[in-house]
């Protein structure tokens, strides 16, 4: 049966060639859409790893009259004391500018046993874990006891641990070479701090040192239900104390705008792609429908020699499916290159799932487009069809 269908298609290869190309290109479009969707969903499904509700960010630039590191630290401590005295503020930590959901990043390479791994670096204070409610998986977070440790302590995230140490225990290991050695004291659950739809990246947290206060940001955990009245009071107090321009942001609002940066282009892409597919579906439907009108004689003859209406319509749908199989084989050949060559650095599973979805989608699309023309063909009466000749 299938062999017969192949023969039918081969006989009209010139005409079918363009149809195959069209299906092939639509397959690639669908593959791209599904890759994007699967990738976003895959990221969305990951746990956030921290708690961003009721966390505020204070951006400020250090006063220019304070230049040396010790006075900057002193200045930061004074600010901290002042903020702690407010009952609405529960926890507070100074950190580097790459706070969650901000657009600034800072990364560098870390070396362990000759293996170099890139990771986002964050400066964090002892209370950072409490402000963001970070989940510790192993070891501990920084404490004041680390003031005296000889090797700088760091906390790494799960992803970096897997990449750097594999199944080994990470706590206690030393990263890097002297004199820039770092000692891993804890492993935290991955923080999805770049937004809901962004992939998780390697992260390494260093304890805030005196040099870090030059370019710092303040993270505040406030009591639930704290309103704008308190915020304006806080703004005034901080503005007077710091003296330079400041801005207060809320992490939950930052997340919304960060997500928008990813969602808007994706939505535009999906709208464009779906219009392309509607276009293709209509075209496919039209061409198949037309072909049936052209093949009335052949179908009439088949009916006359005993083929049932059902088998005629099955044949036509089958032909369309074989045609799309050609396109899918060529398409899959190209699509499979993406995971093989590791294009865009997405996990291979994303491409594989997207590939399956795309194949199923094209088959369903072709069946839907061929069903009505097939049904029409089944309704052809042999006598009428043959009479026309």
């Amino acid at each position, binding site marked *: 049966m299938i062999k017969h269908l192949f023969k039918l298609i081969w006989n009209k290869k010139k*005409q079918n060639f*363009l*149809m195959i*190309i*069209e299906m092939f*290109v*639509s397959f690639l*479009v669908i593959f791209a859409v599904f890759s994007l969707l699967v990738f976003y969903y895959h990221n969305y499904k990951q746990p956030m790893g921290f708690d961003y509700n009721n966390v505020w960010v204070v951006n400020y*630039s250090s006063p*220019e009259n304070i230049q040396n590191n010790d006075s900057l630290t002193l200045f930061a401590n004074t600010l901290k004391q002042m903020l702690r005295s407010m009952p609405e503020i529960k926890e507070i930590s100074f950190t580097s500018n790459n706070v969650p959901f901000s657009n600034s990043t800072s990364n560098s390479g870390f070396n362990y046993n000759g293996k170099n791994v890139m990771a986002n670096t964050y400066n964090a204070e002892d209370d950072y874990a409490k402000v963001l409610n970070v989940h510790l998986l192993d070891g501990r977070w920084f404490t004041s006891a680390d003031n005296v440790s000889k090797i700088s302590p760091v906390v790494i995230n799960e992803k970096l641990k897997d990449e750097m140490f594999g199944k080994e225990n990470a706590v206690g290991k030393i990263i890097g070479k002297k004199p820039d050695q770092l000692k891993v004291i804890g492993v935290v659950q991955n923080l999805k701090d770049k937004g809901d739809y962004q992939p998780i990246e390697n992260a390494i947290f260093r304890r805030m040192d005196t040099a870090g206060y030059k370019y710092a940001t303040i993270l505040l955990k406030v009591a639930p239900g704290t*309103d*704008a*009245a308190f*915020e*304006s009071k806080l*703004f*005034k107090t901080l*503005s*007077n104390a710091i*003296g*330079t*321009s*400041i*801005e*207060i942001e809320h992490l939950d609002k930052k997340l919304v705008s960060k997500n928008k940066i990813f969602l*808007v282009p994706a939505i535009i892409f999906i709208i*464009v792609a779906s*219009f*392309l597919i*509607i*276009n*293709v579906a*209509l*075209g496919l439907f*039209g*061409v198949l429908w*037309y*072909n049936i009108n*052209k093949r009335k004689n052949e179908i009439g003859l088949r009916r006359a020699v005993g083929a049932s209406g059902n088998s005629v319509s099955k044949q036509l749908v089958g032909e369309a499916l074989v045609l799309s199989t050609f396109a899918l084989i060529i398409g899959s050949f190209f699509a499979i290159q993406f995971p093989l060559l590791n294009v865009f650095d997405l996990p291979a599973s994303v491409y594989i799932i997207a590939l399956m979805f795309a194949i199923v989608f094209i088959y369903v699309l072709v069946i839907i487009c061929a069903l009505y023309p097939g049904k029409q063909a089944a309704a052809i009466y042999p006598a009428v069809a043959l009479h026309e000749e």
Partner: protein
Amino acid sequence: MLKNYFKIAIAVLKRRKFFTFISLFGISFTLTIIIVLAAFIDNILSANYPETNRDRSLYIISMQQRDPVHQGQMSGPLSFYFLNHFVSTMKTPAKVAISSLFASTNTYVNNKKLVINVKYTNADFWDVLQYQFIEGKPYTKQQINNGEHVAVISEDTKKEYFGDVSSVVGKYIEADNVQYRVAGVVKSVPVTQLISSGDLFLPYTVSKTDYNAKTYMGSYTAVLLANSKSDFTKIKDEYANIVSKLPPENKDFNEIHSFADTYLKSFLSFSNAGNGVTIILTVITAFILFVMLLPTLNLININISRILERSSEIGVRKAFGASSKTLVWQFIVENIILTFFGTALGLLFSFIILQVINNSDLISNIHLTINFTVLFYSLIVCLVFGLLSGVYPAWRMSRLQIVTALKAQ
């Protein structure tokens, strides 16, 4: 002759309504995407309010300091000191507008938080950029030198901060914990215009950072207004000369690069060293070709199917001596007529979509329009589209044997 082709084309379109619908849907939708894209690009590139002097302006928006030994580099906007000291004193430009890139701060009205983008400017800023004042006027050089706390605000800020009041000039607005007297209100500018967009414009002298700090890097950019376009090379040369004589700030970073460039070029080199313009053009062309590929294939397929419908007509014409060339030509013209119909629909759809984008809050204050440039490009695209999707089917059609063509019916 063309009139006949036109008549035939209309007759064919009327014959199979479903196929006509598919063809028109594909064409109009493709054109809609391209027109909306073109309108957006045009909006970013053309000299819109308030940067109407863009065609005779050069922009200095960044400086790069390189360390050739360690392959390090620092780049970013410039300091007020640098621009005021080295650029304002240049002889060739007519005027130099200096302004900071906008920085966000907060203000609180009636327990509601407003995020305000603040921009510090010099006095010439108001001459180089043609802001439309709804009320009041810009602050003067005298006021700047006195360090007066005066401000020009955007219309949006006026609405959000003061509510529905007719006049706010002379009233006070609090931002970043300081009271400023409102001197004027200007029509708002969308954020797509980095140099001119802002909610609160203030004299540089009231900035909380030290504007006289003797460093090259900072948060300011400059727009150099030339007397005419022909002065561009002179200005560029003068600036290049200044940059080449700059003493390095840091002994390691001893290569200093900064250029006065036209708007598009200066922004593309900001993010992408080198030939940013070529890259952007390639990306846009690739996107347009990709969007056009599927509808073109689709149209070719449908056109090929429709040939058979007309095989008797083709057979008769051939039998009476029409050459293949005539037939090909006729078919292409018909197809172009069809694409023109599609384009007309596409223009209608894109007009609706642009209205929706303009009225939605997606990008506030943006005003996308279909102007002559956009129209011109869409007509070119339409023509290319018509040719691409018409040539192959026409060639196939012209090769039909008379006998087969006549026998088919």
